C-alpha cells in the first residue's frame, strides 16, 4: 500500500526512536498502517483527518426512540460501510472558496482508496 510505504519511509528517514516506531508500524495489522498513512496525509494536506472504520452502523431514526423523527429520517435501519476501496477516512474540514467568511467555507470531505485493477 503506497500510503503506508510513504509513511514508513518518512519515519525511517528520521532515525533513532522514530525509526524504531516505523519498523514496529510495519508489523501491525492493515488498519493500523492506514492510520500511519493518514498521519502522513495530514502533514501533506494540512487537514485534520479521522479514521472511520468499515462495518455496520445504525442509520436514520424513528418514533420508537425519537419522537421528533421526521418521515424522511425513518425507519432506523442498519447499513454497512464496506472497505472495498471506499469510505475509510474522513477529514474534519476544509476551508475554501472565493467568498468564504473568516470561519465559513467549511465542508467535510471523504478520502477513499483508489481502486487499481491489478492484472490477474
Amino acid at each position: 500500500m503506497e500510503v503506508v510505504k510513504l509513511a514508513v519511509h518518512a519515519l525511517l528517514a528520521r532515525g533513532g526512536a522514530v525509526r524504531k516506531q516505523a519498523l514496529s508500524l510495519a508489523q501491525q495489522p492493515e488498519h493500523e498502517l492506514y492510520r500511519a498513512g493518514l498521519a502522513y496525509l495530514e502533514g501533506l494536506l494540512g487537514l485534520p483527518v479521522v479514521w472511520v472504520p468499515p462495518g455496520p452502523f445504525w442509520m436514520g431514526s424513528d418514533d420508537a426512540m425519537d419522537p421528533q423523527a421526521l418521515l424522511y429520517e425513518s425507519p432506523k435501519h442498519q447499513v454497512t460501510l464496506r472497505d472495498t476501496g471506499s469510505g475509510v477516512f474522513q477529514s474534519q474540514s476544509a476551508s475554501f472558496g472565493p467568498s468564504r467568511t473568516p470561519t465559513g467555507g467549511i465542508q467535510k470531505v471523504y478520502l477513499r482508496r483508489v481502486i487499481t485493477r491489478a492484472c490477474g
Partner: protein
Amino acid sequence: MWVTWTNALAFCRWLSDKVQSNKVQLSVDLPSEAEWEKAARGTDGRLYPWGDELPDINRCNFGMALNDTTRVGSYSPQGDSPYGCADMSGNLWEWTRSILVRYPYDLKDGREDMKTEGLRVLRVAHSLRVKRWSDAHTARQTRRLQKIGPMDLE
C-alpha cells in the same frame, strides 16, 4: 456554508489531484449520506455525536448562542463523535454526494449516481436557523435537509 455543491466537488477533484501527484493511492470525494452519518454518530444509533443528551452551548454551535459560525474543533473534544470527528452537530450544514431518496438507504438504487439530476442532501443543523432551545431536535444526527439543488449556496 458559502459553498455550492458543484464547487465542493471541484475542490474534491483538486485535492485528489494534489494527493495523487504525491503518489498516494487515495482519492477525495464528498461523503455519502451513510459515510457522513457513521462518522457523526458511530455504530450505536445515538441521537447526537456525544450520546442522547440534548445539545448545550458547550457541545455545539446552535440556538443562536453566538450568531456566527465557529472554527472547526471549537467544541472538541466534548462535542466530538465516537471517532473524534468534530462539528458533526450544529454550526453548518454540510454537503453529501447523495441524492435525497427515501430510506432505507441503498447504495445501489441510483442515489449515489453523480450524473443523475437530483437534489443533493445537506446534513447537520444550521445554527443560524435554530432560534429556540426547543429547536434542539434540528441538531440531531439523523436530520436531512431537502430541496437543495447543485447550484444553491449553502
